[in-house]
């Protein structure tokens, strides 16, 4: 069985609903609750992380190419999450530099490209926002 998303969802529910209540009053009870919530979040992210990264890479490649930096085609050689993240991070650094340079310009083309970059940033943030946590037994953990 390699249905990681389902397994993490179930492990998380067990930690939050069964283990944590038995540890109520002990400091480790809070740890169990938070670990359970994050197991659920990890299962959700496991399902979509590769898709998010490939889309982020594709959008950033296109934005940078529009400014004359590199090619628009992603040319992804490895779909390991760690490799995709390394590629995404390298492009994000270039995007930060590009956006800062665009903000210093006053022409319509620069403003339009900056608007597109903000559209990309907003889409990235929205895509990466985890589902709201199901607080309950985990109620005392936030600090």
């Amino acid at each position, binding site marked *: 069985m390699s249905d990681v998303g389902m397994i993490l969802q179930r492990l998380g529910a067990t930690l939050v609903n069964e283990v944590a209540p038995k540890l109520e*009053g*002990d*400091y480790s009870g*809070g*740890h169990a609750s*938070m*670990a359970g*919530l*994050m197991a659920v*979040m990890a299962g959700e992210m496991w399902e979509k992380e590769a898709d998010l990264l490939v889309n982020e890479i594709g959008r950033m490649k296109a934005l940078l190419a529009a400014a004359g930096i590199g090619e628009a085609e992603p040319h992804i050689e490895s779909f390991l999450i760690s490799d995709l*993240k390394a590629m995404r*991070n390298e492009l*994000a*650094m270039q*995007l*930060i530099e590009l*956006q*800062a340079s665009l*903000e210093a310009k006053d022409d319509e083309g620069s*403003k*339009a490209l*900056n*608007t597109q970059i*903000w*559209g990309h*940033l*907003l889409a*990235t*943030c*929205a895509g*990466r*926002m*985890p589902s709201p*946590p199901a*607080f309950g037994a985990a*109620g*005392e*953990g*936030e*600090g």
Partner: protein
Amino acid sequence: MPEVVIDNPELARQFEPYAEAHIPGARNLRVVQMRRIHGGASRQTYSVDIAYEDATGPKTKGVILRRDPADSLIDTERRVEFAAIRTAHGKAGIPAPEALFLETDTGPLGAPFFVMGRIEGGMPLNPFQIDAVEPHRAEVGREFFRHLGAIASLEIDGTPIAEEIETPAPDQCWKRELDYWANEIRTNAREPQPVAEAAIRYLAANPPPPAQKLSLVHGDFRSGNFLHDGQGRINAVLDWEMAHIGDPYEDLAWATDLLWCGNDQERAAGFIPWPDAIAVWQEASGCSFDPAAFEWWSLFAHLKGLGIWITSARAFADGKNDDPILAWSGWFTHAAHELMLASRLAPKFGVKL
């Protein structure tokens, strides 16, 4: 008979002689209860019951021991936190705990620590479960903004906090805070932060008006950092580790940040309608509400949040602190604040929502 719990027997043994030496006239002091409590990822926090004798007979006392961990959410000096509590305790009705001992030497307990009086009879409010305060939401809300304003109302000249840290110029409060958190983000980020970087540039290019007054800033005044009595009264304001002197709008904006509002944008901090909250805060603080100042400081609050969560993630990833709250903060709350920042800044640059 209640169960006796000593969560950390070695710490209890070390604490006994220290406390006895620091309580005038105390002898035969012993720790009869020591529970590690949540809400203290930035420091290890223990609720401690001590029993001792003095010239008038047997005594018992509840205290809170805050010891520095190997790493913490925020790199702040416990000396400043201690001074902030001393500044607020007993003033303007602010229910700050009583500051008892401060020890900066690592000798007695293996790490610096301080001790406060424990405020009895209060319960925390999870910022993600604000509905739990019903049916006293409005009363707690008015107390919340009254205490927030009262902190801003204190005269700071000659206070313990003013003796401990620098007082910025009114037109430099924003820059000092922005520079500090920008540095925290850049030092601790494990991945590029394009939204944070864009926000830093925007905030630097569009500064707020100078502070109307210089005040004690709690630094982390929000749901989750106070205790209430279940009857509509806030009986403790806690977690002063980010306290400093600055612009009162910093506290107002952080206290009403969307993250702490339970997704309720109609009620300030998720408690009472915005006009009511502002009216209570203005009366208690002596400040007048300025939308331009609030706009800047509320954007900054999202960025400051990112700084805290990025620092948390770094501490967890580096193995300095295994508390899962740090990982959760570095993930969920980081994502939430990043989305808030992007949602507010993108329209300023032409994105139609």
